């Protein structure tokens, strides 16, 4: 498997290098879909320049990166392009290794369940074989590296790529079973952008499953392990935050980074849902709606945990998608991360209902974003409603994609245990619906 991976890597590096040298690089860096106030490269350069002038970069409202990013780019700023290409490669590599291991786990579990006769007799066509699963890791790496969203994000040098790398390493560490490393990477990811906090639940569920600890609320070993993992995670988070204090000897970065993510003061249009709402809202209600919107991101964790407690990896995928859709400043780099996971579930293809229309919606919306931006800002013949409509459609497409996969996954699980030809009590053919 190494040779095709190397080929994919070479193609990806060539594409990125070619784009870096072309005139499109400047154009893409300016796009609001790719660079948000949280992760734009311009702001990193600005922050480092302020630091050279002796001013704290957090003193204005420009710089919202964490001190570890300051440290990283202080020494690597001349090699920025190389750094971003390497982060993309590391992400792809981490995802490749993670999915390879995950496939082994899936296959082992499937074999166990077949031997335990848990499956209905007529589901032979739903059973996955190692043959079809052989190329999935390569497809995952391919999907991530050659996704136009990832390429644009890399060319724009958005630090979202670094966040993606950390989340990919977190997934790798979780799948390999190392609770310590997974807690450390999750703490790093949460430290950079607050939302990976919700990935705590799927990681915990996966590690519990791996340790064969049953998930019962009364079980002592469950709580023990949960406490251990939570302690590891919180301690690493606290250690990293205290370490960042020593970079600039001030706690300025906390309101600048986390306060900014949570209170959403900057209403530059992006592909998310926050900006339009808060641009037209009265001051009086803005606190209430900020709280509602932020709770919306964290809210789906518990119900999904209850429903998907036997399938933590799928839970992780859905959670990543929810973070990318509902976070306060999404960019296409976040979308690219969860899209990289789609090949893992391509066995669900026969159950997906809306995949054609959803892929059309996503492609058309991605193409219309720059068009309507031009019409609104430069030509002046459209207004913000046009751009917001495309944003809404894009997000609806993403949500429908996730819920379609959710439905397909649950349907397959149901068929596996109840057989492919479902009948109602009176013998007529039944149809599964997602309630």
């Amino acid at each position, binding site marked *: 498997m190494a040779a095709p991976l190397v080929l994919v890597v070479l193609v990806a590096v060539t594409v990125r290098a070619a784009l870096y040298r072309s005139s499109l690089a400047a154009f893409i860096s300016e796009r609001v879909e790719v660079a948000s106030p949280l992760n734009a490269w311009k702001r990193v350069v600005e922050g480092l320049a302020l*630091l*050279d*002038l*002796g001013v704290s970069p957090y003193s204005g409202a420009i710089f919202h990166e964490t001190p*570890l990013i*300051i*440290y990283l780019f*202080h020494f690597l700023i001349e090699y920025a392009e190389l750094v971003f290409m390497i982060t993309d490669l590391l992400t792809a590599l981490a995802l490749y290794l993670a999915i390879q291991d995950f496939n082994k786990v899936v296959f082992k579990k499937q074999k166990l369940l077949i031997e335990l006769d848990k499956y209905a007799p007529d589901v032979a066509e739903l059973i996955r074989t190692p043959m079809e699963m052989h190329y999935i890791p390569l497809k995952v790496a391919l999907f991530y590296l050659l996704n136009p969203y990832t390429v644009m994000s890399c060319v724009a040098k958005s630090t979202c790529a670094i966040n993606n790398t950390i989340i990919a390493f977190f997934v790798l560490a979780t799948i390999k079973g*190392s609770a*310590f*490393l997974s807690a*450390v990477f999750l703490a790093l990811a949460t430290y950079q952008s607050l939302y990976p906090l919700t990935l705590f639940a799927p990681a915990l569920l996966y590690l519990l499953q791996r340790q064969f600890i049953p998930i019962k609320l009364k079980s002592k070993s469950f709580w023990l392990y949960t406490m251990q993992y939570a302690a590891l995670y919180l301690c690493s988070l606290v*250690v990293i935050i205290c*370490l960042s204090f*020593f*970079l600039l*000897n001030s706690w300025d970065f906390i309101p600048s980074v986390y306060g900014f993510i949570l209170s959403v003061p900057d209403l530059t249009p992006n592909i998310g849902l926050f900006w339009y709402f808060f641009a037209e809202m009265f001051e009086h209600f803005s606190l209430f709606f900020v709280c509602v919107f932020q709770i919306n991101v964290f809210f789906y964790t518990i119900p999904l945990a209850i429903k998907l407690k036997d399938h933590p990896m799928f839970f992780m995928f859905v959670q990543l998608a929810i973070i990318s859709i509902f976070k306060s400043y999404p960019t296409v780099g976040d979308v690219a991360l969860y899209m990289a996971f789609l090949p893992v579930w391509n066995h669900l293809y026969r159950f997906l209902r809306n995949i054609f229309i959803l892929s059309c919606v996503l492609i058309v919306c991605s193409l219309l974003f720059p068009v309507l931006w031009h019409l609104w800002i430069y030509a002046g013949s459209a207004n913000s409603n046009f751009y917001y409509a495309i944003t809404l459609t894009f997000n609806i497409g993403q949500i429908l994609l996730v819920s379609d996969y959710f439905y397909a996954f649950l349907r397959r699980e149901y068929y596996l245990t109840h057989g492919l030809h479902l009948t109602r009590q009176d013998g007529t053919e039944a149809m599964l619906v997602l309630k």
Partner: protein
Amino acid sequence: SHIVLMLADDMACNPRNPKPATVFSHKNMELNVYGDDVEVDYRSYEVTVENFLRVLTGRIPPSTPRSKRLLSDDRSNILIYMTGSHGGNGFLKFQDSEEITNVELADAFEQMWQKRRYNELLFIIDTCQGASMYERFYSPNIMALASSQVGEDSLSHQPDLEIGVHLMDRYTFYVLEFLEEIHPASQTNMNDLFQVCPKSLCVSTPGHRTDLFQRDSQNVLITDFFGSVRKVEITTETISLDRDLAGFESKLPKDELATEPLKYAEQLPVAQIIHQKPKQKDWHPPGGFILGLWALIIMVFFKTYGIKHMKHIF
């Protein structure tokens, strides 16, 4: 002499003026101040704060005709007279849409002083709260008069009911009356000008400022600024123009000029301009931070991969 006239509104040729091409100071129509030889250099929308400051400081585009330039040098006495539009505490309104502040004006005068564009400057302003406009001057050789103090309004003189507007402001009217009696040989000095328009006539209290002026105001003739009177000395002796001017100066009759030479502001020292600021020391992350970070990374590495690797490294 050289007059640069900036008129924002064209009253004389306004279609509503029943006596076209005339502007009278009083309704008895004795004195047509518009006259036959008035030349308006900046008219209507050209009267902006920017143009005014450009005329003063000399930063004019090369295509500007000479009539629109100030063309002054270090021996010129300049009279600046501002009136008409609304003023306030510290500003004067131009064209209903912009303002010139007293700070801007003071800075413009300082630029003129540093560029040696005037010898002495007389600044007269007739607007509401006019005294606030000269509060901020800090350049030498400026004398200022205003029609009202801060907090007072300047009032207009009399309306002409035929035309329907007030013809002139009070202060301007009385200053005009005073100046009509001055001829090029008159010896009236500035103290008399300060007495023009007392509170009984003007309702507002005129103010003046002479602290920046190096001569005593009693010794300053009105004709130093008005009437384009030049000091001409006629002599029948031959004078050799040589470097040593000490002998030359002693031949001049003693006049009211100050004996100590006027000093110009220090030109910006060129050495300071050319010398670059020392490069700021680059920021480096504190050593403690780097140490802590790498210690953590090494700890994580060894925790994951086991302590047995330590043996191979050390």
